[in-house]
């Protein structure tokens, strides 16, 4: 019993940390898909870029860890704006197939570039000394870095919710998600708004990739391999909301950790089956409104 409890706590803890990472990476995808209806399968590319930027700035530029995280966020956000203006913006009116193919093309290119620069091996993450050890809480040991991820993620979530629910910018985003044409006609520049949201969402993906580099290994196959998970979070949570993907990410993080711990022979099988059943029950996701 004692042992079972210990493993239960451990699974919940690691699951929440994993879920936080999934949320930080995927929330931008949910908002951009809700806002512009763009099927951006290349979202994982931004997360991978964030991870590579983190390891490079730690190992080669010798930056301190917090600064490296900030650099990952800023560089990925800036890069995504360039991509958005040059390429994505041309395809907003195009069909789903064109968007899917275009973003698959981006994934192919990104994995090739990652392989050319960094090789195929996964990147080691050198955490700062203070985050390497164990953290003692109520007589149990927890890895300090995961505690940091959970706390950092929680404060990020709080900041994001405040930003969207309580600020003018957030109100404009919500208005545009609800009804883009109407928002535009009352004077909201939805194009600029979308650019800003896209940058923020991609930057967050970069931050999530950097933050989670120790949990989700940074390697060239990253955008393909984890795409299913990012999409599951968004599809299960529902488009254009912040709350939906959060709940979905936590549930999936915990469920995935639990499955891998107790029934490793099933792998991710149960998660996929659960996702399919849930989407059949509620095609618009847990918190999404029916289209």
């Amino acid at each position, binding site marked *: 019993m004692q042992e079972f409890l210990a493993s239960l706590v451990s699974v919940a803890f690691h699951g929440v940390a994993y879920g936080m990472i999934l949320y930080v990476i995927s929330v931008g995808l949910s908002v951009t898909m809700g806002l512009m209806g763009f099927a951006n*399968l290349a979202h994982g590319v931004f997360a991978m870029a964030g991870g590579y930027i983190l390891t490079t700035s730690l190992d080669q530029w010798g930056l301190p860890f917090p600064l490296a995280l900030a650099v990952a966020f800023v560089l990925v956000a800036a890069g995504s704006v360039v991509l958005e203006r040059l390429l994505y913006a041309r395809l907003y009116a195009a069909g*789903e197939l064109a968007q899917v193919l275009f973003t*698959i093309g981006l994934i192919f*290119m990104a994995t090739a570039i990652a392989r050319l620069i960094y090789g195929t091996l996964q990147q080691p993450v050198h955490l700062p000394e203070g985050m390497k050890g164990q953290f003692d809480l109520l007589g149990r040991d927890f890895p300090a870095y995961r505690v940091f991820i959970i706390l950092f993620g929680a404060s990020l979530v709080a900041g994001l919710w405040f930003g969207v629910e309580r600020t003018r910018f957030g109100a404009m985003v919500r208005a545009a998600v609800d009804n883009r044409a109407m928002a535009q006609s009352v004077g909201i520049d939805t194009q600029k708004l979308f650019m800003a949201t896209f940058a923020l969402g991609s930057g967050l993906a970069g931050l999530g990739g950097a933050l989670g580099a120790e949990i989700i290994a940074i390697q060239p196959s990253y955008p393909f391999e984890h795409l299913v998970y990012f999409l599951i979070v968004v*599809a299960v949570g529902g488009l254009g909301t912040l709350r939906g993907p959060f709940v979905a990410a936590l549930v999936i993080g915990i469920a995935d950790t639990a499955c891998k711990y107790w029934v490793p022979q099933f792998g991710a099988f149960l998660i996929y089956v659960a996702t*399919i059943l849930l989407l*059949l029950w509620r095609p618009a996701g847990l918190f999404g409104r029916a289209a």
Partner: protein
Amino acid sequence: MRHNGSYSASPRIGLLEWTPWIIGIAAFFLLPEYLSLGARILIFILYALSLDLVVGYAGIVTLGHSAFFGLGAYAAGILSARFGVADPALQLLAAMAACALMGLATGAVILRTRGLTLLMLTLAIASILLEVANKATSVTGGADGLSGIVVAPILGLFRFDLFGKTAYWLCLAVLFVGWWITRRLIYSPFGASLVGIRENHVRMVAIGSPVSRRLLTAYTMSAVLAGVAGALLTQTNQFVGLNVLSFESSGELLVMLILGGVGRIYGAFVGPVVYMIAQDMLAKQFPEYWSLGIGLLLVIIVLFARDGILGIIDRLVALVRKEAR
């Protein structure tokens, strides 16, 4: 010309439509050292044709078509390696049956959804099959792949030889049958209604077309064709690897189809030929630059030439005709 499903298009097989078969037969005699590549190309043409039916005609965007290709490949392989059934016709039939069941079962539930949810579900189904194939090592061989596959001579007469001659003819013959059936389907009222659904789903429902049943039929047909292609791959290679089920496999197939041209039957012929010959020449020497180039090509096609190589040819022909006038 892009066939838009109108009744004005003549359903008779035009002279130009025989060229793929003439080339296919000529290639056997002229390029004997490339027969194994040729067989692989023929298999992927069939696979691309099956994708064209759902994506190009029915307008169902799927990321999980590899599910059926892989299921067909494994069905044929498992039948031989685990149950000792070496007859190639039975292997093909088993692949068809498995894919028909799978297509019917998954199509019945997922085709009710649209957009992101549908993308997600197709991807999830392929991922489930990949996960099963990976974990059920005693049946599928897992990550090491399935080996020990035996294929008996076709009709008891034609043995699978080392040079891939028999395999090439088998692939060519099966592709011909697959093409003929697909073409008949597309030029039928059924095909016209598929195009109608692609162009305007709501209106087709409104005019009383049995939309869900049509989509399910097209999806299942396509699943069977993809399964046959998978089974042919198993028979030519006498090996099944996990990669037949991977997302990259579905992605690559989409690249081939868009390269040739979506929704025009022969795009599925041109795309795999160009893609796989280029791959054969370039991919081994420059693997990184190869996938960089493919990505770049895909982006360029989507931005500037969404109707693929055949679309470009169409436009050139139209231009020349205008000049001549």
